[in-house]
């Protein structure tokens, strides 16, 4: 039997990019059915792989003329459903746009295509004594374009700031295919212009598609010390963090893993030698001039001691440091041992309310009968409660989603946020109202419409449509429905 003829749009896309860079078959599209937020799955209409700004423009112009929605995508490591496309949308996958276009060692910036992997950029400048500071846990696979879209953070943003603090400018393809240049190497905002660079950063692919990004590079510090302390209680670990910050120290990173996470890590390929009997471990990284770091290390050790640390480890070389970080960076991967799916939450609370938040999270987990682990950026108060669940079980999924919602409400009630670094995507559409009222959301919608007036660029993300919140609240049912239709294996 002959294959069905290709629809006209898909034929036109193939005409632009060639058959090797356009995917339309149902099987081929499986790889794009979700991101790291596996609760929400949907195969797109097609996937295209452009390699240049011109090709992105050509594809977007074609889709704009055909009134077809499209979704930009990096490595698909997003944890909020941001790059997941509905069945009528075309995914513009930027993974092939992975060139580092320019590096300036004198002015400390790089110009990159959006598909450049975060860690590859640091690898490209390491021999120059430079690095790119934002370091999400997925940095070995996630892309700079995705980081820009989500305003990604990472362990080192306590000292060095989020992606927004490191993006100087971007060339963007607007949803009608025209170009705009925001900022440049000299600064994200001209003295007589608005800071559209900051506004664009974190817009989750709903404004336009960045095709060239200018980022700030940082000089490596003379000395780096990484310490790991084990504690008999989470309270002691959190108090140590408060003591360190209250003393005016600004470590490069302050990370906590709870006992369940430690055990998952130690049972996995990410095993890092963390003390399995500890209730919590605190990872502290200090960087700066050697004379300063020697003093700061002594102070941190004293805070460990005062708060009753069970053990203290200090990395003596790069290999040791890598080992101590291996467990933290691999924590989410290690959760794969606990169940088939992982729901990574991303709430923020004022740092001083961490203990209260963790107690509340434990209670919510018990109430819903879900398996909860905690790994978090303690310095920023950015919690990552992780719920391990079997996504094939509609009841478990429903309990997971309900617990997640309550946890984020708790964060907001404590004066925090529903997302510190993962974004809203489709995951938290129903939660945005916890932080913003109709007037706030209306202003945001008007701002988005300036960039994306027809709503073709990544529709259905970040802002709930008026009166449509209920649709998102049906996730568990949606998952169950998908199961019924055999959409998922």
């Amino acid at each position, binding site marked *: 039997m002959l294959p069905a003829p290709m629809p006209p749009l898909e034929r036109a896309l193939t005409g632009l990019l060639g058959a090797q860079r356009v995917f339309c078959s149902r099987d081929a599209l499986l790889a794009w059915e979700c991101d790291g937020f596996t609760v929400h799955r949907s195969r797109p209409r097609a996937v295209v792989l452009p390699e240049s700004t011109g090709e992105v423009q050509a594809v977007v112009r074609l889709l704009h003329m055909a009134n077809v929605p499209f979704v930009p995508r990096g490595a698909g490591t997003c944890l909020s459903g941001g790059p997941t496309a509905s069945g009528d949308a075309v995914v513009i996958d930027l993974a092939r746009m992975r060139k580092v276009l320019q590096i300036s060692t004198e002015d400390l910036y790089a110009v990159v295509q959006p598909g450049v992997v975060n860690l590859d950029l640091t690898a490209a400048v390491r021999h120059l004594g430079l690095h790119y500071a934002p370091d999400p846990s997925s940095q070995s696979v996630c892309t700079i374009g995705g980081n820009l879209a989500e305003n990604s953070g990472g362990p080192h943003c306590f000292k060095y700031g989020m992606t927004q603090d490191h993006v100087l400018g971007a060339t963007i393809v607007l949803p009608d295919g025209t170009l*705009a240049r925001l900022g440049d190497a000299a600064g994200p905002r001209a003295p007589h*212009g608005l800071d559209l660079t900051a506004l664009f950063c974190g817009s989750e692919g709903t404004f336009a598609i960045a095709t060239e990004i200018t980022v700030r590079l940082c000089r490596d510090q003379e000395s780096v010390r990484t310490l790991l302390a084990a504690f008999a209680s989470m309270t002691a670990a959190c108090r140590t963090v408060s003591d360190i910050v209250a003393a005016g120290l600004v470590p490069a990173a302050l990370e906590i893993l709870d006992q369940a996470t430690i055990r998952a890590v130690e049972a996995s390929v990410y095993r890092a030698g963390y003390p399995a009997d500890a209730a919590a471990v605190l990872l502290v990284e200090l960087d700066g001039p050697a004379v300063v770091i020697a003093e700061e290390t002594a102070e941190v050790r004293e805070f460990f001691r005062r708060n009753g640390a069970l053990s203290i480890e200090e990395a003596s070389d790069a290999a040791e440091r890598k080992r101590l970080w291996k467990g933290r960076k691999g924590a989410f991967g290690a959760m794969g041992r606990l169940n088939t799916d992982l729901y990574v939450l991303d709430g923020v609370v004022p740092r001083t309310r961490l203990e209260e938040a963790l107690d509340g999270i434990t209670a919510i987990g018990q109430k819903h009968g879900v398996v909860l682990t905690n790994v978090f950026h303690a310095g920023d108060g950015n919690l990552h409660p992780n719920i391990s669940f079997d996504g094939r079980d509609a009841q478990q999924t429903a309990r997971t989603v309900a617990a997640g919602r309550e946890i984020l409400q708790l964060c907001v009630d404590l004066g*925090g946020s529903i997302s510190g670094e993962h974004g809203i995507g489709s995951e938290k559409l129903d939660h945005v109202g916890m932080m913003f009222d109709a007037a706030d*959301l209306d202003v945001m919608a008007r701002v988005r419409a300036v960039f994306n007036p027809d709503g073709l660029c990544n529709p259905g993300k970040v802002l709930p449509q008026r009166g449509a919140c209920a649709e998102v609240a049906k996730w568990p049912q949606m998952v169950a429905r998908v199961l019924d239709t055999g959409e998922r294996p």
Partner: protein
Amino acid sequence: MSPTPRSTAELQELLRAVRGPVRLLGTGSRQARLPAADGATALSLAGLDRIRRLDAPDQTCSVEPGVRREVLDAELARVGLELPCAGGGSLGGLFASDATGPVTVGGASPRSLLLGLEALLADGTSFRSGARVVKSVAGFDVHKLLVGSQGRLFAATQLHLRLRPRPRSEAWFERARLERDDALRLLATLRALAPAPAALHLLRGPHGFSLAGRLAGRAVHVQATLREHALREHALREGPALASLHLEATAGGEVVAGNVVGSRLPALLAAIPADARFLMHGGGRFEVALASARETDALLAALPALSTQACIVLGEPARRGRGTPLDAGHERLASGLKQTLDPHGIFV
């Protein structure tokens, strides 16, 4: 006398009542640097002057736009914190003008310290953006549009700010009467330090080049850096005069402000008249005082070739804000944002 509301509700009422264009002011310290607003009602936010929240352990605060910089600084000093960006006057004005950017390489600036805000649109509608915590990516960062907007998009009624611990030790230094090449070499050396000085300022005046800066951190680091680079600690705690951040215009003259990357600095210096005063901060923002509109126009015409953006900040009101051409796509978006947030063009 400008109407001076004392609360958000009063401001809202005024905005709903006012007819015609409105010029938002803080303490008025930057009024001379704003473009002309003929016929506009001046509306002072100086009466919104409360520090609404200071959470020292979390290193954040919320302030009304009329809070004066020195008032906040005094409060922060009591709890060992600081707002690590340059600029005086009212906090609302400081953030809305963003007149100096970061004062050192990769340093904090109003854009990096603004966590969120509450604001009023010109029709009195209130809205919020961002959050009070140090990290939040919920919703779009509409609050970042305040930075550099000069109050032409909305009126901020409360700013949520990130703070930092005060350094345990600090020292200002100044090297004066330097030859151009020596000054540029020293500037490049200091900009390359990790960590960079907390502030760096380069001035070209009648007596050659001067370079001033502020080192901050632990005493052991501050003293070692002074020694290593043969820098003498300056006597004044607030730093030498050239750290005052801005140039003044001479009679009939103008001041142009722009952004420049370090590698283009020699070319920029070559493009400006030899007797023009020039000031640059370590983050790349510069100001040059030119003797006439003709000199200004010549410089603005030359700057695109140096990939340098700049505009007139002091001079005849009608000429302020004129600058090098911005990207057409950027202009279209900026004008769309003005249209959507302030469709009747009230804020000027």
